[in-house]
């Protein structure tokens, strides 16, 4: 069997960290969750991940800051931003290389579409 594609999830909201993996797994993806950007940066096997679902507003390092840090570290990983703040979904994030920006709450279809686009970028 082909090795499962692992999708990373970074969100300080526990509800997201619980529900999103269940949904992604029902589509056959593996998931790896992180409660903060700092926690993700500690993760050694980040390159194993097919893509990253990243919350924008978090205490400490924000989603976009993490994006900048990854660019700086030349770790190229497709990012799907999610945010409960509609205003956060700035076009600049896409310009910076993000695959998509989803406003919470988002539909199953939107999520799947965005993840598939991200994985397609590889």
């Amino acid at each position: 069997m082909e090795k499962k594609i692992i999708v990373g999830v970074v969100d300080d909201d526990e509800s997201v960290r619980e529900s999103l993996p269940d949904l992604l797994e029902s589509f056959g993806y593996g998931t790896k969750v992180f409660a903060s950007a700092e926690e993700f940066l500690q993760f050694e096997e980040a390159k194993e991940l097919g893509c990253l679902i990243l919350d924008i507003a978090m205490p400490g390092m924000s989603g976009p800051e993490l994006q900048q840090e990854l660019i700086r570290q030349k770790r190229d990983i497709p990012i799907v931003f999610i945010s409960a703040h509609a205003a956060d979904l700035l076009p600049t994030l896409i310009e910076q290389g993000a695959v998509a920006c989803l406003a919470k709450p988002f539909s199953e279809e939107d999520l799947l579409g965005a993840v598939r686009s991200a994985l397609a970028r590889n």
Partner: protein
Amino acid sequence: MENGLNRVIDALPGLIWTMDADGGISFVNNRWQDYTGQSGETLRQTGLEPLMHPEDRAGYRRMLQAAAENSDTTETEIRVRRADGEYRWFVFRLASIDDAPESGARWCGIASFSDEKRAGAEDGNAPEQRLLRFANNLPAQIVFFDPEGAVEFINNEALAYYGKSFDELRDWTNAGVIHPDDIPQVQQRLAAFVADGKGGQVATGRMRGHDGAFRWFRSTLLPSVDAGGNIVRFISIRTEIDDFRKAEHLLTAEVELLRMVAQARPLAFVLDQLCRAVEEISPGSICSVLRVSREDSRFRAGAGPSLPDSYNRIFDGKPIDPGYGPCSLAATCNEPILSSDPLRDVRWAGSSWPGLIASIGLNSCWSIPIVSSSGRVIGVFALYKETSGEPTALERQLVDRFINIASLVIERAEADAELQRTSEELQRANRFLVDTQRLTLTASFTWDVERNEHIWSKENYRLFEFGEDAPVTIEGILQTIHPDDLPDVEALLGNATNGKDFELAFRIVPASGRIKHAHVLGTRIEHITDRPVFMGAIQDVTARKLTEEALNRARADLAYMARVTALGTLTASIAHEVNQPLSGIITNASACLRLLAADPPEVEKARVTAQRTIRDGNRASEVIKRLRAMFTNAPTAFQSVDLHDAVQEVLALSASEMRSNRVLLRIDLAADRPIVRGDRVQLQQVVLNLLLNAIDAMREVHDRPRILLVTTREEAESLLLSVRDEGAGFADASVERLFDPFYTTKAKGMGVGLAISRTIIENHGGRLNAASNADHGATLTCRLPTIDAATDEDPMNETAYTKA
């Protein structure tokens, strides 16, 4: 001497005596005593000379002298006064008695009656002549009138007094000796006597003496009848009663003046009358009274009815200079000053006074200080005369008496003026008090609970709208109390009956129906111990109440606006707060459906996701609930509030805002009993304001963690809630301005937040303060009374809120 010899001597028809060598009388016989009416003892002590006619005394002394020189018998004629006052001629003979040395007597004298010898020469023995001689010798004025009223005889005393001859006085009533005012009286009396021998026997009148002065005399008119009872003449006897009369006058004047004092007649009038009285009793004197002002040591006009006005005016307001004249000197040294010859008096050598006084024809001035009962000189009495010289005894007596009256009058006037001043001041003060009470809408009262007696100030009647003449009773008062407040007022009555002080806010519904808010305060009067009597104040606080209510409404509206504004800034965060659980719900529901659709369905996993859906749904609902509470413009209501709960709710609502601003929240809610009395929403609004401000303050901080610290702790019946940020802080000078409405350090925002927050905290009996931290940022601290302290809060404040 032997008794036998004594009897012989007493039997001899003469006055016999013995004398010792130095002239002392050693013995007089009984004849001496019988004739003179004097006792032997008196005669021995006073000697014989006083009984002899004054004209004959020199002859007697010459006889004694001659007897002493040649020790021979000498003889001389001497008149001796009989017991009835008549003098009779005696021949005095003196013989030496050398043979009786043991008795100490040196001379023996015999005076034998010799009128017979004289009678021939003077016909003095005729009854008529004896009467006239008797009349002439009396020390009183005697005038005989014949039965028709014509003058028959005037004695020597009268002639001497009037300085006129008998012929000049013959036309008695027109001789110019009777005071013109008394002439009719004299004529009437005489006429009445002539008519029927009766009439007023005694009368008084003024008679002019040879010196021109009238003196008072008392005159007795008696009929003289012969053996047959026919009136042969009228005898008028006058004795001078001038001193008596003057004393009487003085007394009358004194009584009259004192009566005027008692009637509180004007000072100027009484002093004027006083001067006139002295001038009347002592003709020739001119009087004045000057007052000495207590304030500035100057003279003030008193009275001087007989002095020229121009002279009196000089003294009114004149500074008292002892070198000016006797009055000034008397006022200065508090002693009577006599200037008997002003023009030559060195004491006023440089003064204009002597010339002034001479110019109005006066040549002496006697000034006497008028002294108050406390010893202060309050005036000067002056007695001027046209003649130079000393005051007479009468004048001294008059002045002595009237000075006292003057002192009394002036003191009384000063006391009256003082009383008047005090009374006016009191009236002014009272008017002021009434005005003040009107202005401050504060009434005062005393209330005797048991006796139901009320003493009210004017303002009280106005407040209750009672008529000022209607009696005030507690029943009447109770009828005007707002029914809702009646229980409180009745409780107050109960306490007052037990003597407890009271304070109460209540409403009055007076006759006009216009509801008034009143605030009463009563304190028991301590010195009335047998029953409770209160004094107190009652204030009409209606206007304040209405203003307060309007202010509270405005404040609540503003607070609501501020809250909406604050929540507006939170909209994004709140959306986040709601979107977060919504996101969970949708994701979970999607997962659930997929898990159920799998083959085989993963029912257990689906159940977990369904539970998560419910959980997230509740979470969203909580957010909405909080929001609804904060957005409601509910009326303020004080209740017990758990401050920690309230703070936690606000923190939950603003958690996302903090997160999106990357603020690290630290919470240290250390208070054990975080219960305060207050309005939960208002308090939450304050906390929200403080949090938003703290978040705002740290927006530009990039070099250090944006730590926001929320703490509570207890301290001395207070609960302290602090919100500390790590922002830029502020200059200490601007700390107080932070609380000004519309002051802001931020580019955006109205700045109403802190001003409203402070008002809210103060309405909760607390304080809101700001302080810069030692390193970075600022700390805002609310100090709120804990629940125990809060229950003791001013009841007025609470009512204000419950009724708002």
